[in-house]
């Protein structure tokens, strides 16, 4: 819930604004002043932090037969990527979150950079978020590295260690090409950041790097854009000027820019042209969007249900996307300027990709909507707090249930029947306006005029056919067994029943 007020327009009642685009108004009988009690109880439990109450996730005693907290194990995930190797090592320098309090405990850094080097680089990066590895290409060994902006400032400060460190990163794949730096921000914003001590890598200081701006706007612009989307779909859908209103929200344009940025990152890396370093200002919003989307395009593992959970757990949760501040869990200050739908925007991008590649993802639309619903619900500990250090302090994994427990214990519900497992296929979505759509089933799902076809008829039909096929195959096997069992002399048959069965299955 986003905010509750006791002022009704014409009627006596309660007006509730929800974080998931809903706006509910309850009309109550005036006698007995029932409203006040309700309002008080509602605000108490909707905003527990303001009333020194625990968030519901800590009280939730749900039990699942799967433990979602075990889904992500950083060492295992890096091992899957083939790390450590000759050029990259795993470091525990941040074990107690001393180097960077918003980074995870375990980091992957170039082999040639010592821990002292890392400490010196940290002084030159906003909030000490030094460049660390997110993903490595299994063949050409180019990498995606993430960090925050360099602390260049108005005077154009330089830091030899940072410059050297970037060069070390560049050299890890033994290519002579320059390191590509994608600054997610618009050029002007990056320049403006110099005034507050930030900035970007200049050509003079970083000879072996090429910098591109990706023109993605900041959290405030995104928040306002989503607000406009809400205005045109709730309580009534804009009718006469739907398309131009939709365009004026710029929501799809932002989606397009984020996707375009991620495509560029993915293309650089998969073509083996060069390694890529991505940052924005603090490296926890736009950077997380870009690295995670690029990884989704590059690595088919992340397109499975568990792979996607690992991706979210790694690039978003462990690398300190500030979920608590961006969502405002249990917090009553609904006008907080720190709130922004950055993660929603990421999920929207994933949905756009799944529309363009209907067979590439193991999960369905419901999976994405469920994640978004529990982004706000506080029923699970998954999205609580801003960073790993805070979560560890609060013992979140011990005291709460993971969202992945819910999903993984009932995976069938979230599976896309069209999913075809593929290895090494890079997805390049088309990020042009004519191929992007508003996600009606999410943004307009509360509108009574939209009849959702649940389950989706296309999926349903396919599931029916799959079931039918299994039934037929089983029947065929049985028949073949039956007929071969009745044979008087099995020795005359060149193939016994055990060898015969696979033949039935080779049809498919």
């Amino acid at each position, binding site marked *: 819930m986003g905010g509750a007020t006791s002022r009704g327009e014409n009627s006596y009642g309660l007006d509730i604004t929800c974080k998931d685009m809903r706006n509910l108004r309850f009309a109550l009988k005036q006698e007995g002043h029932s409203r006040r009690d309700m309002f008080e109880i509602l605000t108490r439990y909707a905003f527990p932090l303001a009333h020194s109450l625990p968030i519901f996730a800590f009280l939730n005693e749900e039990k699942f037969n799967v433990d979602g907290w075990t889904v992500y194990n950083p060492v295992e995930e890096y091992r899957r990527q083939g790390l450590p190797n000759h050029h990259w090592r795993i470091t525990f320098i941040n074990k107690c979150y001393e180097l960077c309090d918003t980074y995870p405990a375990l980091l992957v850094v170039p082999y040639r950079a010592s821990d002292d080097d890392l400490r010196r680089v940290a002084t030159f990066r906003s909030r000490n978020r030094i460049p660390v590895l997110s993903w490595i290409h299994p063949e050409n060994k180019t990498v995606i590295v993430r960090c925050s902006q360099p602390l260049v400032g108005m005077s154009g400060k330089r830091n030899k260690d940072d410059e050297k460190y970037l060069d070390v990163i560049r050299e890890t794949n033994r290519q002579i090409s320059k390191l590509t730096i994608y600054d997610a921000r618009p050029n002007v914003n990056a320049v403006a950041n110099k005034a507050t001590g930030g900035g970007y890598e200049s050509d003079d200081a970083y000879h072996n790097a090429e910098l591109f701006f990706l023109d993605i706007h900041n959290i405030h612009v995104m928040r306002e854009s989503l607000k406009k989307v809400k205005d045109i779909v709730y309580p009534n859908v804009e009718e006469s000027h739907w398309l131009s209103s939709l365009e004026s929200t710029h929501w799809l344009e932002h989606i397009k820019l984020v996707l375009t940025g991620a495509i560029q990152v993915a293309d650089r890396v998969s073509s083996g042209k060069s390694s890529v370093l991505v940052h924005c200002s603090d490296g926890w919003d736009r950077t997380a969007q870009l690295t995670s989307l690029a990884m989704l395009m590059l690595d088919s593992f992340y397109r499975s249900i568990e792979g996607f959970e690992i991706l979210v757990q790694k690039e978003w949760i462990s690398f300190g996307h500030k979920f608590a501040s961006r969502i405002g869990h249990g917090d009553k200050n609904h006008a907080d300027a720190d709130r922004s739908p950055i993660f929603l925007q990421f999920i929207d991008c994933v949905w756009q990709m799944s529309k363009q590649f*209907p067979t590439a993802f193991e999960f369905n639309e419901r999976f994405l909507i469920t994640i978004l619903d529990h982004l706000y619900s506080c029923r699970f500990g998954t999205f609580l707090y801003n960073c790993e250090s805070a979560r560890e302090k609060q013992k979140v994994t011990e005291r709460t249930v993971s969202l992945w427990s819910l999903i993984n214990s009932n995976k069938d519900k979230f599976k896309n029947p069209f999913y075809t497992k593929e290895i090494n296929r890079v997805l390049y979505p088309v990020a042009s306006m*004519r191929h992007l759509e508003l996600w009606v089933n999410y943004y307009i799902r509360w509108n009574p005029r939209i009849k959702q076809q649940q389950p989706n008829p296309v999926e349903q039909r396919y599931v029916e056919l799959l079931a039918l096929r299994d039934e037929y195959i089983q029947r*065929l096997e049985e028949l073949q067994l039956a007929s071969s069992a009745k044979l008087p002399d099995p020795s005359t048959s060149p193939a016994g029943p055990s060898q015969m069965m696979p033949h039935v299955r080779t049809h498919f």
Partner: protein
Amino acid sequence: MEHIRTTKVEQVKLLDRFSTSNKSLTGTLYLTATHLLFIDSHQKETWILHHHIALVEKLALTTSGCPLVIQCKNFRIVHFIVPRERDCHDIYNSLLQLSKQAKYEDLYAFSYNPKQNDSERLHGWQLIDLAEEYKRMGVPNSNWQLSDANREYKICETYPRELYVPRIASKPIIVGSSKFRSKGRFPVLSYYHQNKEAAICRCSQPLSGFSARCLEDEHLLQAISKANPVNRYMYVMDTRPKLNAMANRAAGKGYENEDNYSNIRFQFVGIENIHVMRSSLQKLLEVNGTKGLSVSDFYSGLESSGWLRHIKAVMDAAIFLAKAIMVENASVLVHCSDGWDRTSQVCSLGSLLLDSYYRTIKGFMVLIEKDWISFGHKFSERCGHLDGDPKEVSPVFTQFLECVWHLTEQFPQAFEFNEAFLLQMHEHIHSCQFGNFLGNCQKEREELKLKEKTYSLWPFLLDDQKKYLNPLYSSKSPKSAVLEPNTVSFNFKFWRNMYHQFDRTLHPRQSMFNIIMNMNEQNEQLENDIKDLESKIKQRKSKQTDGILTKELLHSVHPESPTLKTSLCFKEQTLLPVNHALRTIEGSNPADNRYSEYAEEFSKSEPGVVSLEYGVARMTC
């Protein structure tokens, strides 16, 4: 052909306007009597029918050659660069001549020869029988009868010979009414709803001017309302905007005065005229066409074209019509000005909402044959088949197809046919390859002797039926169900596969349909395998003592048995070409992948047997 001076030009470049990287293909351009053909260096052929060409433009000379831009009626835009200006000029002139013929006899249909004999040709033309269709609806009956008034096209030249009218409407009434209606198009039956006993009737506007009346016309309308035993009042839907209808009064035409007609409820529904629609499509193509591919104001451009607003207006009118019949049980009379454009749209779409028969492949053909072809939608003028008045050209039928497409999007299980069917239909109203859509009315078609000189499209579509089947169509779903589309703004989308059908970047929906299609076929094959095996077991049981037969059976369950082999062959055949059959190109071949996935899964258990098995399968294929 006297118009062709150059038949072949080499080293021509073809630019792909959808590609972001300005790629071009180099190849040879051929000009034939009927087609323009481009063969690129990969031997891929691009055929463009002369009749599909809407516009040829020669752009200013560039360093690489002379650009020739061809816009087609099927929304294809091709951009050639011809190295020598003289060649370009020759081709340009030839195409100008070839794409605009002066007489019907020069159209492709009169030379097209699909190698059918005369009886096959005749059979093709008899495939759709409208008398049969009226019988299916339940007419003639006690209230409606076949009128012979127009048998010789004496009353109305643009109507068909056979018309159904209320039984109590006598010939003098019909004749009187026809004199009071624009172009003599008096009210006749278009669709009869058997359960509700209500009718959809159609006509043109009355010649009422400011005050004129016609007793026969008033009688005819009364007869129509009386033919409905349940509800005495009837709706008169004027599909035009009120202003247009009023302006028509000054020209001695206009609309029905409710005071003069008993028991009518008059209603305007506000669909714009052919000129507005033409320029709206023009804007749509400008916004989303050549220049609009990269810009970010795609949505506002789409909106300012007004196209989707017009589509919604047509849809809303059809919904009004269907509701009048279903909810109020009232008969409805529909007209516009001449009753051959908007009236055809609304009557046919309304019938489609009401009657699931029209949602089948055959039924849809019948619907087009009835409400469009026989009732004189002026296909040749609207599609610009001949070099005629450009002001008569208008995408009225295209709009109808688009409305149907929107319905298929909202009701994915309700239609037997798929999008490819609608696109193919659109292709052929312009292709002039078949006789169906030539001419402007039945009388003209008879004079052209189309049934003797040309072929009908319908049998060819039916032969190819498999290509047009919607895999989601479920015959189990309630067939009688009336469709109630939701016309909320966000349900109206740009029909990418129509207007950008030559965009090769993406066609996601189609690939899912292909997967379902394949799965369907595989299941059918399995079903057959089961039946085979079952019958063999049965056979064996009955003659169990016979030793020879047992041996034969043993052979049949052997891995290389014919049934299994055919299944394997079948598998490999269907997976690959299905995607080619449809005009789509996909980034991936998901069906293929599914196949390899299973192969992979299987190979884990029995690797040796598998490879051998596939070797056998390939060889036998």
